[in-house]
């Protein structure tokens, strides 16, 4: 059987789904509960790299940054209505923010255990993630090193800035921290905030300057050069 170029990604996705399904695998965006009664989904928005259209992360994070805000949803196995409340185990590690739906704030490094309860208060399932201290602000690009320089080829060119936090072991940390960007010389490179975690740098004139980003008690500077007219 041959597939056209347009059909090939669809066919591969279908085959992969069938293969994973036959193995009884869980999609990567779901972290199975330890008791097998359902799974936890990490909720995100456009500011999170690899956030899906339904507002859930493509991959359940290995760790969350201390100081970051985040949200989870529990989905009971078998497609039953999710009536369970999700709450963290230790309030001094993760606290609940009284919003609708409730969200969470990672307070300090440690085990970030979550329990899901049913309407009678019985524990349905639980899961654990790690809360780690952020060591560095990183741009999610393979070219991002300490000497990384952003080059914009012409006036009016734009580049998206969507930084993430990484641990001392270079593990990407999930969670919303609210980054603040500043341009040393906005006449060369100006900044525009697109949403809570996503900014764009716009080339205004030929020259070089620096961008400074702050968040989670960390800061970083990035060189920018506008090379074209």
């Amino acid at each position: 059987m041959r597939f056209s170029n347009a059909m090939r990604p669809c066919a591969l996705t279908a085959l992969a789904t069938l293969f994973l399904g036959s193995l009884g695998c869980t999609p990567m965006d779901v972290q199975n509960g330890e008791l097998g009664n359902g799974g936890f989904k990490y909720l995100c928005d456009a500011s999170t790299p690899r956030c899906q259209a339904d507002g859930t992360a493509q991959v359940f994070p290995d760790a969350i940054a201390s100081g970051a805000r985040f949200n989870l949803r529990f989905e009971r196995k078998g497609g039953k209505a999710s009536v369970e409340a999700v709450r963290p185990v230790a309030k001094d590690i993760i606290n609940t923010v009284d919003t609708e739906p409730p969200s969470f704030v990672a307070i300090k490094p440690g085990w970030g255990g979550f329990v899901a309860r049913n309407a009678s208060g019985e524990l349905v399932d639980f899961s654990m993630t790690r809360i780690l201290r952020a060591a560095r602000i990183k741009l999610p690009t393979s070219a991002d090193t300490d000497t990384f320089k952003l080059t914009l080829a012409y006036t009016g060119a734009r580049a998206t800035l969507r930084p993430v936090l990484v641990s001392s072991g270079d593990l990407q940390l999930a969670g919303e921290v609210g980054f603040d960007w500043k341009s040393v010389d906005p006449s060369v490179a100006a900044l525009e905030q697109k949403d809570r975690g996503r900014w764009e740098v716009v080339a205004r004139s030929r020259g070089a300057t620096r961008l400074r980003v702050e968040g989670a008690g960390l800061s970083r500077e990035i060189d920018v050069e506008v090379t074209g007219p």
Partner: protein
Amino acid sequence: MKTRLKRACYILALAVPLALLGGCTAGPSYRNHTVDQVVKPSGGEATTLRFRVPHGAVVKAHVVAFDTEGRRMDGDIIPVDPSLMEVDRVVSGPDDYAVLGLHPGRTALRLVAGGQIVREVEAEVYEGDI
């Protein structure tokens, strides 16, 4: 001789019904607990002697009380210090419990069988490696 025989008869007359009554009401009593089907993170522990849970984590166990005739008794687990450790019933069964590590420290868990506290086991919430 007659008086002695009379006294023995009185004692027998009292002792036999009391013994029968005692035998009818006492029934089987608590014998032991078993702890199995443990789900725990690295370093966590749940046995009949000790429960250890990392701070912020959960240990689940199937904890059953048995009587002297080997029958299951209705049980419960009560933390001595609920500010350190929380014990929740799990939806999967009446003898499934989840022990939550709320704050680091040492405490104990009281195991209940047939409505009575029958034993106390060591319990600890510790700062686990992450």
